[in-house]
């Protein structure tokens, strides 16, 4: 049985004035996923999200949320989504409990749900506090509590951690992971990659209103690796059946060439000595000491290179403390997939 996607966006277009802000965007969000929607400011993320949340109607294309067309059944969609806009406001001169009681009444859910949500979001101890006196992080947490009141299947969060301090970001991330464990599908937009890297299972990257890449992070990374650098890649016409499939057919935007990967190696002792052991090895593009006990090695290839290098260094008696990629998988995908033009 094939599972129906929680969110299905197909050939979505939207225009403001004479400018196409979203152009032929197509992607699916599977049930129970934490889906990262990435793109620079002005890429069209918020417009896409507003269409998904029924606040805008698509000018062309179709968007379905849990099987409901956002154009034709906005009321049904509103019942199953919890949408938190970016920089969302709150009512200041009421307490946390009053705020949630208001929304529970507005959603038509029993008032005892408020206690459950207060517990879930760890706001119970602040329930009598005036909203005006809360920190930004706590207000954001209250916003999350609000959208949980009617127990929606899908949470749509537009830049939920923007303007938050590191502690609040970590708390929000932990809360999202907890919500995912409760079976919620979470659609998360951000332009801060570190915010998404730890929690997302799948991503879509938007640039200048066009979708550049979409799918599970591991799958995209694997496909990118499989494509190899330009010099080693055969022409598309001669690729044959064993050619790596394109990551996505997003309106004719080709995937960029594979970049050189970097890995950080931390050792006990002098990194300069290790540098001599690494330089000139097979696949090594370059190496550089970045601190007395750390060096960065550039290479082309897959993770087998890292395994071989570690085996070689250990055999040479190098006390390795840690080996980690210089960039997270998501950062690498983003850099390789986007062009970085001004939006």
């Amino acid at each position, binding site marked *: 049985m094939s599972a129906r996607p929680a969110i299905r966006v197909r050939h979505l277009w939207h225009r403001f004035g004479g400018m196409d802000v979203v152009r032929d965007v197509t992607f699916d969000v599977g049930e129970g996923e934490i889906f990262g929607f990435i793109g620079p400011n002005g890429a069209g993320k918020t417009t896409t999200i507003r269409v998904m949340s029924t*606040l805008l109607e698509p000018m062309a294309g179709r968007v379905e949320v849990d099987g409901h067309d956002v154009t034709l059944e906005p009321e049904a969609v509103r019942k199953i989504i919890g949408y938190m806009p970016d920089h969302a406001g709150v009512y200041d001169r009421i307490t946390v409990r009053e705020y949630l009681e208001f929304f529970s009444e*507005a959603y038509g859910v029993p008032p005892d749900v408020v206690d459950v949500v207060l517990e879930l979001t760890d706001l119970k101890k602040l329930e009598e506090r005036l909203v005006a006196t809360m920190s930004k992080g706590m207000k954001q947490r209250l916003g999350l509590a609000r959208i949980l009141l*009617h127990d929606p299947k899908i949470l749509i969060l537009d830049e939920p951690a923007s303007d938050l301090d590191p502690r609040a970001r970590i708390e929000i991330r932990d809360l999202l992971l907890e919500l995912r464990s409760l079976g919620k599908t979470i659609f998360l937009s951000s332009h801060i990659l570190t915010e998404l890297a730890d929690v997302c299972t799948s991503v879509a990257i938007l640039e200048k209103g066009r979708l550049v890449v979409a799918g599970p992070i591991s799958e995209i990374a694997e496909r990118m690796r499989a494509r190899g650098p330009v010099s080693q890649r055969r022409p598309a016409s001669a690729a044959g059946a064993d050619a790596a499939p394109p990551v996505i057919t997003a309106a004719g935007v080709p995937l960029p060439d594979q970049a050189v990967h970097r890995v950080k190696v931390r050792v006990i002792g002098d990194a300069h000595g290790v540098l001599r052991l690494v330089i000139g090895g097979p696949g090594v593009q370059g190496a550089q000491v970045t601190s007395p006990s750390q060096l960065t090695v550039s290479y082309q290839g897959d993770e087998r290179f890292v395994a071989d290098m570690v085996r070689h260094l250990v055999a040479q008696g190098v006390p390795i403390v840690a080996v980690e990629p210089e960039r997270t998988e998501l950062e690498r995908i983003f850099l390789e997939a986007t062009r970085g033009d001004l939006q």
Partner: protein
Amino acid sequence: MLSADEAPPMSSIPPPPPVVTARHNPVFVREMRQSARLLRTPFILMTVTAMTAFLLSAVGGIMMTSKVSPAEVGRALHHTFFSIAYFVVSLAGPTVSANSIAQEREGRTWEALLLTGLSPGVIARGKFTSAYTSVAMFIVSLAPVGALPFLFGGVTVVEVVLAFACLFLGAGLWVAFGLAVSSKMENLRAAIVVTLIVAVVTSPAIYGVGVSLSWAAHKQWPAVPEGWPVWLPSALERAPFGWEYLGYLVLGPLVASALPAWFFYEVTLANLTSVTDDRSTGIRRWFIVSAAVLAVGGAAVVVGAGGAGAGAAAAMAATYSWLLVLGTFTFAGEPIGPSRRVLARWEREGAGALDRALGPGVMRATTTSLAAGLGGLSLITAAGLAGAGLWGGPSKALDSLALLIVATYTAGFFVFLAGVTAWLRARTNSVMTPRILLLVTLGLALVGPWVVAAIGGAMAGSLGHAPVVAAPSPIYALVVAAELGGRTATPDLGPILAASIAAAAWALLGLTALVAAARRSGAIIAAYDAALARGDELLAAEDARAAEGARAAEGAQAAEG
């Protein structure tokens, strides 16, 4: 019976809609909670009350030094107090309500509220009742000061109670007006400034009209004092009960309050509704009912005027034209046609022809407003002609002719305005452009011909010899009618002919524009439908390919197995 696999998932079964009663409107409760924590409210109330008491004491003190009876002092204080209270309400009411929706938008809480599923009606009513409660607090805090006149006499308890009732009624209207403005605005300051500017201009004008009506009331019922601003409560207590009492003192004020209040409510609802939803039906319904009520009321006044029915009908037709102009400006904001969302809802709910006729679409709006407007105008005219025929004096032929000129001119010019509005709307993407162009067109048509006539030096004679060159101005019809009314001598055919030709020309222009608008909007709707159909075909083809691929994969899997 459905098996477990076939049963719809829980999430697809819609929960029962939230029960929102007037008492438990969550928006009202939340707004009142927020207001209760606003520290400045008691200080504002105290200041207004103290200032009113001081002013009233000053007026009373000054009057006591002159040789006027205590009853006169009491009456003066009564009118002074309620005049002050009127201005407090007319300024505070729109300002308080202007805060409400614009603040939600500016504070970025509006989307969260909208997505709860609360209907625009529930939100609007919650906002209205909370703003009205705040304004009512002003009235209640002023109430003890309003009892000062009892120390002197001259007014009865019933008059004071009725005056307070009128004040509460008026407060409702001003709050509804502020809410309608607020519903359109994204910015809180802009909402307050706009409402205040309109209130500062309109409030004294309405007050002046109220004072001037006291002379008419005195003429009808001599027990009602003339020239006093707060005359309606006195008239309600002192005038003898009868048809006139019921019509002019009860139904008239109620209709004069209810129709604008309903209009403001529908405008608020339309502004709170998404642009792709149905924002038209409510306002259209208001226009049709208003046209019918004013036409029936106007016809009743005309019949009641007896022998002067034709003149009264001409005046009624001229007054009625204000509603037609308001309707035209309102319908200039109509979308070209119903959105996909509205069409789907019509299909789902099995909407009938009437529901669809009242739905979104510039041609639908123009057709229904023309039908309702011209129907009402015909009723008033028919009543005037019948009145003149049955009870008219020696001038009844020319009175009827004057009425016909005003009515046909009004009808012709209304057809022009409606047609041009529809054409402008069909040619532009914005809803403001047709309104601005319509305003310019209206101004030019009203004043332009007179300016041309003045420049040509043709205005040398009296108004009775209105120059033919001014005939394109709708004012010309009123001038000609005023010249004809009450006369028995053979009239000059020139101005009558000029007015008739101008009316026909306006109507012809309007009809031409209407046809052009119908073609244009029809083409736009056809192109939109074709684009939607193409999109649906594309998606259906994709679905078919995906299904085929899935079947092939399953087949391959089965073969491997």
